């Protein structure tokens, strides 16, 4: 799943080298903290969070088989 988050975010940004994804594992949930260059923040979030929500949908689709909750947080 981490590879999916990384792939999607790197495809969207102008500075893929600045993308960092860390995985925080809880009891029944996993949080992915995504750090991007401040210039790329808008590209990853999109108007009214449309892109950020689409990323969440795509990551959750993969997480379904593990029955875990998945959160994706986007930070500059």
């Amino acid at each position, binding site marked *: 799943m981490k590879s999916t988050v990384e792939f999607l975010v790197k495809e*969207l940004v102008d500075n893929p080298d600045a993308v960092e994804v860390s995985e925080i594992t809880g009891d029944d949930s996993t949080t992915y903290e995504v750090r991007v260059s401040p210039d790329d923040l808008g590209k990853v979030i999109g108007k009214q969070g449309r892109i950020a929500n689409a990323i969440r949908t795509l990551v959750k689709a993969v997480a379904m088989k593990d029955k875990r909750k998945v959160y994706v947080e986007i930070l500059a």
Partner: protein
Amino acid sequence: MADVTVDTLKERIFAFAEGYAASTGLDLAVSVTRDTPDAITVSVDGTDAAKVVGRGSRVLDALQLVATTACIHRGDPRLNVLFDSEGYRERREQLLVETANDLAAQVEEAGQEAVLDPLSALERKIVHNALLDHPSVMTYSEGLEPNRYIVIAPRPAQ
């Protein structure tokens, strides 16, 4: 930078779909099922295909949104991109047209409006087009995305 051609965009979209499929670790295979001068349909099939469709095709639609945002930029030529899976879009279109015709018949008989569940812009277009030439009902959309829905109403007498 040289001008981007439609073929370049198609290659980018296909590479994106393959990259996503590979990143998931799921059993997915990507292929182009329709290729015209201004449109491409990319199908994601395989034993895990149901996962990339999602309820009401929300995953397919998300894939389509992220792919077009990542691959097509301002100034690029126009390209319609559709993501599909195991023939989902065609089955869905048949169901939508069938539902539209059934509801149109009810509206015609009862003389009262009927409302459909919220649909994406793409799916609303299918319903609007299905009833465009209907002699006694008309369609319009109400509400705000993502809960915009179609109303089928009796056509006012001319």
